[in-house]
């Protein structure tokens, strides 16, 4: 067995156990769908955007929820999941087997990719079928969607592995990691319209990748007329690629330096 085939078998195992864990299915998989539905119903009478180009609440919130899904499936899910596995002895058991660490990571990344894709598909489906959101017809938009999603989900997963070392115990994992994810969602234009935030808060959010993932998703799903609302009045896809790329590298380096199967002597 080499590292890659073992990694592939880990993906199957990880996806299977993910869906058997009731709370992860609700809080990471279905959460964005639930939020999208709530916003769509609550603001069903309102319209969003510049006069003449108004869109429904569902259309307006879809990109943000897609970005939130990427963050939840990667950073939040893996951050909590791995911290739990550290404290409940799962990783200690692996440490005593010839399973390569890289195969374990492939399994986790694969789990995030598979569940993230299913989640995005479900979100788009619910938005278009239940709430009548018009989807882009231009294939180029879908190409943008593909790379923003892949880069976003990979970055988010790697950062999840990196932050899993923060909580001191499995019990505190949700208490440490969920607030990080929540604050990011609030300042990055997921729940609150980004252009309404004060300038300084926008600057702070721009340091983190979620703002850029949401922006990339807006460039795919919102009409052209919305572009002027962005920082610098541009979708700035190069910025999306650069900031996410930097965080991806930061996450990889942190993981390489800090990840251990176990804390020795504990």
């Amino acid at each position, binding site marked *: *067995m080499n590292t890659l085939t*073992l990694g592939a*078998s880990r993906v199957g*195992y990880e996806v*299977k*156990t993910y869906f*058997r*864990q009731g709370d992860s299915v609700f809080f990471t998989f279905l959460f964005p769908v639930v939020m999208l539905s709530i916003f769509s119903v609550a603001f069903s009478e309102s319209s969003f955007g510049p006069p003449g180009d108004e869109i429904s609440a569902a259309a307006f919130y879809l990109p943000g929820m897609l970005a939130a899904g990427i963050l939840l499936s990667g950073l939040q899910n893996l951050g909590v999941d791995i911290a*739990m*596995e550290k404290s*409940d*002895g*799962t990783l*200690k*058991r692996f*440490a*005593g*087997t*010839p*399973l*390569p660490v890289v195969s374990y990571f492939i399994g986790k990344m694969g789990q995030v990719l598979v569940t993230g894709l299913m989640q995005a598909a479900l979100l788009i489906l619910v938005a278009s079928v239940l709430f009548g959101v018009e989807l882009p017809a231009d294939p180029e938009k879908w190409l943008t969607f593909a790379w923003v999603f892949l880069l976003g989900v990979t970055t988010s997963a790697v950062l999840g592995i990196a932050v899993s070392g923060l909580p001191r115990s499995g019990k505190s994992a949700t208490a440490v990691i969920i607030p990080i994810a929540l604050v990011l969602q609030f300042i990055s234009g997921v729940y609150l319209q980004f252009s309404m935030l004060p300038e300084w808060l926008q600057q702070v959010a721009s340091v983190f990748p979620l703002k850029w993932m949401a922006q990339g998703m807006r460039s795919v799903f919102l009409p052209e007329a919305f572009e002027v609302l962005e920082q610098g009045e541009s979708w700035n896809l190069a910025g999306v690629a650069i900031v996410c790329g930097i965080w991806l590298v930061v996450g990889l380096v942190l993981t390489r330096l800090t990840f251990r199967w*176990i804390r*020795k*002597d504990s």
Partner: protein
Amino acid sequence: MTTEYVVQVEDLRKSYGAFTAVDGVTFDIRRGETFALLGPNGAGKSTTIEILEGYRDRTSGEVSVLGTDPGRGGLDWKAKLGIVLQSTGESGNVTVREQLAHFARFYPNPRDVDEVIAAVGLEEKQKTLIRKLSGGQRRRVDVALGIIGRPELLFLDEPTTGFDPEARRQFWELIRSLKAEGTSILLTTHYLDEAAQLGDRAGVIAGGRMVDIGAIDEIGGADARIPVVRWIENGVLREERTTTPGALVARLGEPDGLEVVRPSLEDIYLELVGEAGLAAAATDTVIEGAAL
């Protein structure tokens, strides 16, 4: 040397801060041998085992496991080990069979999953999620995962905790068949009958020190094995150690409560550990005296 001995430990020490948990332990395990590490709670058994497994760093001393320093063991080295830890607590969202089939893939030459499931007696539970198993059944999964990779050297840290008597007998059979295949085993247990059944040699450790070490039927010395004759005389319990109990009994005739007892491993162990406790208490007093 390295092929003859699967484990070599020389003057091993381990401190947690100011507290010394393992204090100069020395022992070897030959290939194919089952070595039982015995001792009271907190004696340092798990600490010693986990150092050999590569889980903990040692403070000092020499350790070699299958010719490798456990602190530096790679994946090839781990592929030759089987590990059953004292405690585990995974969430267990997979079935017994799924878990074993999955772990089997980690190893170059794994055992057959069905055989292993049968060997630990979980045929009827193989499609049950591990989290839905009883405590003893989960423990059997731990044992199954320890042997699935066909290890050369198997570490068993209190493997039968929570086993019912029948499961324990079945486990003994399993270990005997592993021994027959040539597997070397390091076992800790608080069941002295288990150690007597399975062990070739034993080491007794107390307070981090090796109190005695030797073949399972010689440990404690010949004197500790001298039979004891007990009887009641004028309402008082009397006992006498003698190498000729028959002669003594013949002389006594038919007193009340007559019995001849050959000390079990448990009796010998309790004596050894008791002596070690007394010795430790004595040194403590000396130290206290010195402080005054």
